[in-house]
């Protein structure tokens, strides 16, 4: 049995070692063994602190496990031979190994503290973006009241995010920027970043927020000022640029409607949109049926709890103040196309 175990263990280990290179193939370009690419002005400093601690830890790890293994070998039990024995304590030694690491810890605290101040001191002259988080979508609002669900950042520009949440606590995290901050309902939290490398990055929600927590992602795009402004202008007038139906479809995805409402007839957290327009539906707590018309859609967006479709939970957050009339019109136009 022992032999069987060792052979299976061996083949198992060799399988794993054989596929190890695949790990590095999968990671985004520019990743190191420990980190994704560093794309903000604080990232390299933070990585430096990380590596400093890493080498410190490696030193102590090798020291402790090395001594342990050596002692396990040197002082293994031999039949009839008692322990060599030694002093039962040594105050000088014990004080030394308590106090000397303390100096290292003070230094660790200091570098962590300095790095943290950089992370948390928001520059005065920063470009400001408002962030709203709700289950399970991000909304980034730029000056001029332009709202999108992608975070576009001009390269080498200090950007301040002023964040709030509509429902539960979320947390905004961009691994490539090495920074995160919780987004808390009932208060504003702030963070800032200065992206130094053009490209696309991932933004995660890192505070557990329910069923679609792991789908609450957003794309971060870092680009030149020129491209950024062009993009922003286009976003500012979706209907003008794309027409009602196309704009409605874009809004369906960006505002997170697609998290709960399917367009293929399948039931999700909320009722499907397929063929829904113009149909009657039963409403929770009232006997009369209601037709899903323009007014119903508008009311459901701005005051979702007013008329709940029978059989579905009352979980939709309101979009009051986060959506423009033209955008509601675009969504209505889009829903009409879903026959």
């Amino acid at each position, binding site marked *: 049995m022992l032999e069987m175990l060792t052979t299976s263990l061996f083949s198992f280990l060799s399988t794993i070692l054989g596929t190890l290179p695949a790990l590095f193939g999968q990671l985004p370009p520019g990743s190191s063994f420990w980190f994704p690419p560093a794309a903000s002005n604080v990232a390299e400093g*933070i990585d430096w602190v990380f590596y400093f601690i890493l080498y410190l830890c490696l030193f102590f790890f090798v020291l402790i496990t090395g001594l342990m293994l050596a002692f396990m070998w040197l002082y*293994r039990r031999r039949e009839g031979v008692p322990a060599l024995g030694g002093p039962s*304590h040594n105050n000088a030694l014990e004080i030394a190994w308590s106090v000397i690491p303390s100096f290292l810890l003070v230094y660790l605290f200091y570098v962590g503290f300095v790095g943290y101040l950089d992370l948390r001191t928001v520059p005065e002259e920063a470009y400001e973006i408002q962030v709203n988080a709700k289950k399970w979508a991000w909304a980034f609002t730029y000056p001029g009241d332009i709202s999108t669900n992608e975070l576009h950042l001009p390269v080498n520009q200090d950007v301040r995010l002023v964040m709030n949440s509509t429902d539960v606590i979320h947390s905004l995290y961009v691994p490539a920027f090495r920074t995160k901050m919780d987004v808390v*309902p009932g208060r504003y939290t702030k963070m800032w970043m200065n992206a130094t490398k053009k490209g696309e990055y991932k933004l*995660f929600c890192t505070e557990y927020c329910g069923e679609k927590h792991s789908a609450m992602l957003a794309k971060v795009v870092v680009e030149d000022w020129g491209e950024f402004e062009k993009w922003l202008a286009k976003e500012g007038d979706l209907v003008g640029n794309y027409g009602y139906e196309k704009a409605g479809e874009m809004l369906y995805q960006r505002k997170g409607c697609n998290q709960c409402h399917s367009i293929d007839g399948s039931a999700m957290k909320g009722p499907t949109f397929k063929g829904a327009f113009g149909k009657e539906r039963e409403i929770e707590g009232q006997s009369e049926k209601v037709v899903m018309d323009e007014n119903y859609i508008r009311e459901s967006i701005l005051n979702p709890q007013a008329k709940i479709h029978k059989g579905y939970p009352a979980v939709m957050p309101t979009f009051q103040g986060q959506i423009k009339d033209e955008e509601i019109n675009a969504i209505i136009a889009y829903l009409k196309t879903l026959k």
Partner: protein
Amino acid sequence: MAVEVQPTPGASPAPDSPLFQSPENYLTHPSTSIGSWLFTLDHKRIGIMYLVSILLSFLIGGLLALAVRLELMWPGQTIMSAETYNHVFTLHGAIMTFLFIIPSVPASIGNFVLPIMLGAKDLAFPRMNLGSYYLWVLGAVFFVGSMLMNGLDTGWTFYTPYSTTTSSSVISALLGVFVLGFSSIFTGLNFIVTIHTMRPAGMTWFRMPLLLWALYATAIIQILATPVIGITGLLLIAERLLQIGIFDPALGGDPVMFQHFFWFYSHPAVYIMILPAMGIISELVSIHSHKPIFGYRFIAFSSVALALLGFLVWGHHMFTSGQSPVSAIVFSALTFSVSIPSAIKVFNWLATLWRGSISFTTPMCYALSFIFLFTVGGLTGLFLGTLATDVHLHDTYFVVAHFHYVMMGGTAVAFVGGIFHWWPKMTGRMYNEWLGRLSALIVLIGFNLTFFPQFLLGTHGMPRRYFDYEPEYAFLHFLSSVGAFTLGFGLLLAAIALILSLFNGKRAPANPWGAVSLEWQCASPPPYYNFKRAPVASFPYDFTRVEYDPPSQSYIVRAEEKGAATADH
């Protein structure tokens, strides 16, 4: 020890040898009826009932963990929906924390050995001890109740306002936590009073076995911190039932305040979990290397230091929560102070191994695994206490890996090691050492394979509590899942080794390891009354007085010479 001896059939020990089965052993005396177990006031039986119940919780929590790892083995949906996944990881965390790790060592091993180590017949308050067990059962019923009703999907941390708005059964789960809290307080109170008032002749504070120091320090935290989680739970229940605004901003409350309340208990609770484990390791390392523990006083004081400092660092769970940067900085500074007492213990254990005579018994293999895993867990805590790096690592798999190295690799491994160490005493049976050692090896390999890749997942930015993940994380998740099943297999082997011993294990001698502390000087299993006459205690790590007695296959502790009893070590 002067105990009436009846030779065991089949064995031929000398009549006065310590190898005997006492006719009044606690397993059969006063009776073997179920009622005599359920209403027993004997700390040993209560300890065994706790042990069985806690191990059952460990099994359920472990199966839930395997379900989580199976789901995460491949990207996308594997065996369950996102909603089910959220319930499963919550129950894994909640069961492991509240039903398994917090009571684990004190309530089972502690309950069993603490009075015997003191040469006492029982704890100071036997009825309160039984009460504590039934409170645990009641709390567990509430937990299982919420599982069967609506499930629980808040994460074991119950963060508001998610927990005030979710439709899952938060209230019954919190009632469970509240009741379990009392169970924990009862145990702590009992231990403190017992240690203060019932130490035998010769046992000064600095002649207590180090496990008792650890249990004493733990009991302080249990009494001082547990009420806070109880009150926090009640406030949350009040908010949900009565719509009083406490934590929910929609009602005018403050969700970050909940985090302060929660961690004010839950950080000290980390020390409720790890201190008794450290106590076990101090016993195991010394006894199985047959050499006095090095730096007894430093280890004893570091337990108390951890218990006290543990109260001052809760804010390090909240560096990105929106608490003020000033408090984050203060908490970071305080956090580094707790690493010193832990480091002291590790260095002292190493110095104990030095020039020892190390027996690679199963308990020792687990103890050595503990030192390895706890070292990794402790060192990786430095990345999280340091503010600059924590902002990146907070709420990623790096944190998951770190606390599993400390809680699972630390506490759970020490707990299993402790069970193997005291198993002969508890059951009167020896297990198959090779099977035990093999289980320790597989647990060590499986553990590292499970959790080391999670450090890398974390530094690469993989957030925790995710049902699904980006393709770039797939390989490391796969590795981790393979490791989890290896780990599960290792623990299964450990269980098999122990269960088999009940049926065909050799009879255990009174003192199979050559230990000096008092619990090894009564029979295995101990008689109902532990000791007929109160024994006189000596320094529990003085192995010069230990001799092997071949006919009884047991070690014998020679009586201390006159005058030596008062000498300080």
